């Protein structure tokens, strides 16, 4: 799973959002590290919808513009949970090794 897809799924956990809402939420979640451009967002969304992880929700018209909302599916929630566990395990492994290394470095001195 790409970082972009990971953040799009995360942005939809607490409820359906429309395209621009997802862009804003992803920017906030990633501390501005993942600025989604529109072409990139819809490339990711198209794939997530195709894989059944995200589904179109409702449509609204605001300021004369159509806004389609997207929601996370059950499958999407499970995939995101798995991915989060995987990243957590990776981070734990790296931290443990770093901690051991620091202890060994500090030991002889």
């Amino acid at each position, binding site marked *: 799973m*790409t970082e972009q897809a990971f953040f799009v799924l995360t942005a939809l956990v607490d409820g359906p959002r*429309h*395209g621009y809402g997802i862009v804003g939420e992803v920017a906030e979640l990633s501390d501005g590290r993942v600025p989604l451009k529109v072409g990139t*967002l*819809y490339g990711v969304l198209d794939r997530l919808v195709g894989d059944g992880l995200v589904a179109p929700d409702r449509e609204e018209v605001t300021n004369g*513009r159509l*806004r389609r909302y997207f929601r996370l599916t059950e499958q999407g929630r499970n995939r995101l949970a798995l991915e989060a566990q995987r990243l957590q395990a990776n981070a734990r492994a790296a931290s443990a090794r770093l901690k051991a290394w620091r202890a060994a470095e500090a030991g002889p001195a």
Partner: protein
Amino acid sequence: MSRIETRYRRLLRVLPAYYRQQWEEDMVATFLDSVAPGEREDEQIVAEYGWPSAAEARSVLALAARLRFGGTGAPRRYALSGAVVRRFALAGMLFHAATAMTTLVLRLAWPPEVVRTAPPVEMVLRFLWLPAFLALVTGRLRVTATAAGLATAAAVVAALTTTGRGFTAPELGLLVLDVLLVAAVAAFHRDAPPVRPRPWLIALPVTAVCAFAVEYAGLLGDAGVASALVSAVGVAFLCTRRVFAWRHDQAGWALTLAVLALAALGLRVLALPQLETAVPARSALLTAGYGETVVAFVVAVVLAVVAYRSVAGPRAVTSGTSPA
């Protein structure tokens, strides 16, 4: 409709129709939300005079490359075009990498006073195609794009500065192909099936030896080597297309080879006037040049017909997504 919306919709036309049908309205709404969400005066100015930013345009172009040169799971038409463009890039860089090596080796056969001088810069810079090809085969796309881009730029600079006479027709033809090769790297995106390195790595020394043989025998130049090699591979494909690995993707291979054959034929034709002035009339070399052009033309036509039939035919057997 504001001007910026018109401009953005125009940009979205690079995307395939099936995709626009599904996503265009969403994309436009999200884009407009991001640049001019309301009715404020500054937002109105953006809506009337603004353009989609370079970053927005890049994201749409990257999406277009991924969709139009599709990979696994793409509609057949786009999967096929993806397979063809990727093989075109591989074959083109393979050719450049192989001939860069043979040119330098052949130089050793020149008169001693030439061999002892340093080789011209453009001859050395052509070697950039070797890392470009190897990186493409092993999936290091940034290296490929950089090396191929530099090699192409070097060819332009060399033609403009060293000779001071601008481009000859064959040089211009080769340059157009080089630019297309660099652009074709965009077809190696995340959805594309990975390149199987082994056959392409084996093809490198084989192509180099064949190019050496052709050039040593006939001294027909790049165009001659390209059309001789593509014609030979084209004939081999036509004779064995139901036997070897390419039987799994006949349409894809036929189309790839037809494109390569047409490109090589174009180069060959562009280089003919140069050959006519370089060698005496009625010499064996000139006859060989004409003969090669006729063979390349026939092979290109037959390949194009086979490609058309296997793409359009009801029994077309292609996944289009088989590895390059």
